[in-house]
């Protein structure tokens, strides 16, 4: 009974770094942790360490707006995210941790004929892959979300929506902690406050990783550093097609629950959900210029609040509680960069832009398989870095610019 008053550690405190690890994972976010977990769990590869420059989950994994969905535009993308949603559906029991995943549905609003056409295209691609996704009209939208302003008063009245019933939100910190705890229990070492500062190369291989706590030799390296990918890539001698931008979000004070679904409007550059605590969670697009400075802007608050009010005028008197910012690693085609590189034992998970949290489980499963077997799983073959050398892109612009 008394122990409930003492916080329990979820994973072991870090020890000294060993001289060598079979696998060194750079980045202690959802992707790095999931990869470590599945390496140990599915492949018995347990001589693994995670090196994180700050605290675990300090990157975008602890700052996102937790939208999980599979209704992407390309068959490659939709099939990939579909598998991730399936893994998320079983993840609470797999990791024995309540992740508070609530699949209440996701609505991408269309305010124009063009918007309806894009929604229709996505619905067709999705249906062929067995993903629940359909275009609905204003009457059905009103049933799902009576509080939305469906009148012709807003500047861009709502004509219809792409409805994706399995879309939902989750507790992002819990996902990070559960993967960290799961990996730790299987023997993975987690090293927070250990920054990677260089790589020692011998020809096309990395032989050792330099860190702020000394040098470690490695069999293979995985970089799962999202917004910092270009910098870590550069340390290894690898140039990437990525630019780093900030994405911001804010929450209001808690209100009585009245919004179940997630509402996204590309036309208004805004999306809205209500958290389990009752806060309205509002986000928008990235800032257009590249930056590594994680400071919010007043202009973001102004325009995203104004646009959210176009959808929910009843939030007019609601106060903003807090706002925050995270780094996003944008790729030219809004699809991830996943797997092998021209450096033989250096693999990447990058190019996640504003939409990578939903992919953590499937990234973990597929990257672990790649590291363990040296073969690229078919599901992620379209996302190889090589596509940028050969100019064979996978454009998700239509489904990922505002919808995260």
């Amino acid at each position, binding site marked *: 009974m008394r122990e409930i008053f003492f916080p329990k550690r979820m994973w072991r405190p870090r020890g000294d770094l060993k001289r060598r690890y079979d696998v060194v994972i750079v980045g202690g976010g959802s992707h790095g942790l999931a990869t470590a977990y599945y390496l140990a769990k599915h492949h018995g590869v347990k001589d693994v360490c995670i090196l994180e420059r700050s605290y675990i989950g300090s990157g975008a994994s602890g700052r996102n707006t937790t939208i999980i969905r599979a209704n992407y535009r390309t068959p490659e993308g939709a099939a990939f995210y579909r598998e991730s949603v399936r893994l998320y559906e079983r993840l609470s029991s797999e990791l024995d941790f309540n992740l508070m995943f609530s699949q209440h549905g996701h609505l991408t609003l269309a305010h124009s004929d063009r918007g309806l056409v894009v929604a229709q295209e996505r619905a067709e691609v999705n249906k062929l892959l067995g993903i629940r996704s359909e275009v609905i009209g204003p009457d059905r939208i009103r049933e799902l979300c009576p509080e939305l302003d469906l009148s012709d008063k807003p500047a861009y009245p709502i004509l219809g929506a792409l409805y994706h019933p399995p879309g939902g939100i989750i507790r992002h910190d819990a996902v990070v902690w559960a993967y960290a705890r799961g990996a730790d229990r299987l023997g993975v070492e987690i090293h927070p406050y250990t920054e990677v500062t260089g790589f020692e190369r011998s020809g096309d291989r990395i032989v050792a990783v330099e860190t702020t706590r000394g040098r470690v030799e490695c069999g293979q390296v995985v970089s799962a550093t999202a917004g910092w990918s*270009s*910098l870590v890539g*550069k340390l290894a001698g690898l*140039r*990437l*097609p*990525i*630019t*780093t931008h900030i994405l911001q979000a804010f929450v209001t004070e808690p209100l009585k629950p009245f919004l179940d679904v997630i509402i996204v409007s590309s036309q208004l550059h805004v999306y809205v959900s209500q958290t389990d605590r009752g806060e309205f969670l509002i986000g928008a697009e990235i*800032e*257009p*210029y*590249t*930056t*590594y*400075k994680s*400071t919010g*802007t*007043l*202009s973001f608050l102004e325009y995203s609040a104004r646009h959210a009010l176009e959808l929910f005028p009843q939030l007019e008197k609601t106060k903003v509680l807090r706002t925050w910012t995270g780094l996003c690693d944008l790729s*030219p085609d809004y699809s991830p960069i996943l797997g092998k590189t021209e450096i033989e034992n250096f693999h990447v998970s990058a190019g996640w832009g504003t939409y990578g949290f939903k992919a953590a489980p499937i990234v973990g499963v597929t990257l672990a398989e790649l590291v363990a077997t040296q073969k690229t799983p078919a599901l992620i073959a379209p996302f190889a870095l090589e596509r*940028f*050398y*050969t*100019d064979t892109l996978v454009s998700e612009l239509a489904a990922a610019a505002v919808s995260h």
Partner: protein
Amino acid sequence: MSFLLECPRCGSRPVDEFAYFGEVTRRPKGSASLRELTEYVYFRDNVAGVQREWWQHRTGCGEWFLAERDTRTNEVLAIHLPQPERAQAGGAE
């Protein structure tokens, strides 16, 4: 806070008035290979530090110019108008 950027014609203005066109890149010369072209089109240094980059005063006077900005702090260290001679010689602008 977002930051202020200095237009060579209009002076200091909020960054939201400007359109950003990315880091200065080097166009491959002559008959480039596919790899050289895709490097040029897609790959970026994306530095955490001082970056030379293109801006346009979109909702102001419309002028295109170059800035040197520290991407870690968003401090703008210098701005200047592009120089055609240099562009021809180095191909950098």
